[in-house]
């Protein structure tokens, strides 16, 4: 096994045991980038020299007995909406052609403090306003979409071009590409991770989170990112809830590492409406089989009714569309021609949303949050598909469902992700199989706010009961 194939957890253990140096690991991942990047186009920028310097520094510190923890010396990538000092944050847009970040985002600073090695910046659908990331190709089939908007991060992790990556999620932008590329993606509780220094799509829906090969890896990255930040107006001053002790997530890694996958005492809700409507039969079969596996581990499975399902898309759009337009107000007036056609059109049309409609969306959000709180009082976790269908072919605009309805690909990919953005609950996606074409299928696990540990525990138990967690996409070098 090459170092680039190691999961974060495996690499961290090898580094800690002195069996692998950060320089060897970083060189291996950079070589992998050199071998497959031309086909995948995951990165906007690769900073190989800086990454090698950072890895060498980590190696010296670790050799001197100054380990900073499990991320020390681990190579990773940031979605190119996330500021890293001295590097451009292009948002994959010509609008940002001359941008240079004059400081680290909160998450870049936290990863730097943890000793992680920044490889570079990954592609996003322009300004995160889309679900396909057309610049980037799916890691499993280069003729299919990467998903978005954190498409570059998902593909880089899936293909071994980064040991982990960060993305952002406003309507599924971590979970959608993670599911379509067969990796793990975690959208944490709204406000748990600071968004300071991260380009916004929609302030009231934006989240930052990890994309990793395994659930255990996601727990490790989450652990390094959590913390109150007064520079983000939505930042919580609350710690995520530990599984049993109410303690901080600092103990999460060890807790997950030593669990035997026993889920007795946990109640898992399976939606009887919404999440299994208009989805591909192969996705439904894979997710229901995954739920059976969780049941086999001792979880009690109960049906739940998703409240206010009819209004999910209206709330998502009513919040996101005017907020995105507001963020881009200045540049939409000065350099509209620099936006790609699809993003420009959405931003322009967003000018016509009425304040009354925005307020209705905000009031409906209150109703939906309260209804979800009641629903999550009955179960610990909700298990559902992450996306209705696997990665579509590049250029495909619509999906036709068995009931004869036709849906835009982007609407389809947002549909099952949006509730967790609106309600702010933690949502994890993990791979649970493949369709007939070999494309990955993702299962989504959602929990109560700040109960990341429960969601991660269930996901990790699923992985332990299988044999292929952390498998790389079969991209030949």
């Amino acid at each position, binding site marked *: 096994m090459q170092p680039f194939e190691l999961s974060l957890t495996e690499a961290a253990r090898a580094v800690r045991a002195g069996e692998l140096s950060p320089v060897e690991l970083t060189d291996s991942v950079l070589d992998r980038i050199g071998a497959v990047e031309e086909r995948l186009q995951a990165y906007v920028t690769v900073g190989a020299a800086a990454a090698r310097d950072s890895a060498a520094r980590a190696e010296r510190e670790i050799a001197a007995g100054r380990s900073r923890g499990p991320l020390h010396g681990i190579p990773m990538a940031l979605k190119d909406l996330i500021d890293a000092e001295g590097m451009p944050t292009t948002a994959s847009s010509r609008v940002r052609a001359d941008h240079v970040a004059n400081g680290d985002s909160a998450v870049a600073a936290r990863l730097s403090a943890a000793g992680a090695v920044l490889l570079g910046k990954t592609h996003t659908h322009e300004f995160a306003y889309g679900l396909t990331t057309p610049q980037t190709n799916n890691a499993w089939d280069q003729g299919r979409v990467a998903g978005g908007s954190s498409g570059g991060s998902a593909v880089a992790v899936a293909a071994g071009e980064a040991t982990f990556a960060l993305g952002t999620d406003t309507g599924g932008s971590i979970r959608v590409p993670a599911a379509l590329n067969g990796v793990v993606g975690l959208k944490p509780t709204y406000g748990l991770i600071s968004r300071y220094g991260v380009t916004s799509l929609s302030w*009231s829906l934006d989240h930052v989170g990890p994309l990793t090969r395994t659930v255990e890896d996601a727990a490790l990255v989450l652990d390094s990112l959590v913390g*109150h930040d*007064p520079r983000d*107006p*939505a930042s919580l*001053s*609350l*710690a995520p*809830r530990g599984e049993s002790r*109410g303690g901080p997530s600092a103990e999460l890694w060890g807790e997950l590492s030593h669990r035997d996958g026993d889920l007795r005492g946990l109640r898992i809700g399976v939606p009887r409406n919404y999440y299994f409507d208009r989805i591909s039969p192969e996705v439904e079969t894979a997710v229901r089989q995954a739920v059976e596996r969780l049941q086999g581990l001792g979880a009690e499975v109960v049906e739940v009714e998703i409240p206010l399902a*009819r*209004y999910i*898309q*209206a*709330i998502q*759009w*009513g919040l996101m*569309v005017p907020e995105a337009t507001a963020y881009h107000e200045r540049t*939409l*007036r000065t350099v509209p021609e620099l936006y790609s056609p699809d993003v420009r*059109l*959405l931003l*322009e*049309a*967003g*000018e*016509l*949303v009425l304040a009354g*409609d925005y*307020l*209705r*969306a*905000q*009031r*409906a*959000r*209150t*109703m939906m*949050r309260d209804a979800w709180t009641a629903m999550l009082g009955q179960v610990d976790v909700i298990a559902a598909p992450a996306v209705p269908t696997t990665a579509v072919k590049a250029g495909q605009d619509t999906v036709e469902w068995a009931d004869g309805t036709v849906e835009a690909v982007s609407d389809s990919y947002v549909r099952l992700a949006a509730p967790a953005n609106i309600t702010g609950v933690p949502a994890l996606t993990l791979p649970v199989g493949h369709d007939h074409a070999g494309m990955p299928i993702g299962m989504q696990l959602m929990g109560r*706010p*700040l109960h990341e540990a429960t969601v991660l525990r269930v996901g990790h138990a699923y992985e332990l009961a299988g044999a292929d967690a952390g498998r790389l996409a079969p991209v030949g070098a």
Partner: protein
Amino acid sequence: MDTGELTPQEAARWALRAGLPLSDDRHEAVAATAQHIQSVIATLRELDFGDTAPAAVFVAGHGHADAAVAGQEHVDAAV
């Protein structure tokens, strides 16, 4: 709720009132997209909100969230 068809001319006029002049070749596409967005969002007009307040975030004194209020102990409200 049917809110009526948005014409390209109306879209241009609304955008201008919002401070965004649109060139002639943008009117039709913007009108169609705005109409579609409106048709989705208008579903919310079915709801009876009663006294429900918007979910928008505002915290008075933000930036000093860790400061104890005078005369009170700071409470770590971990949940």
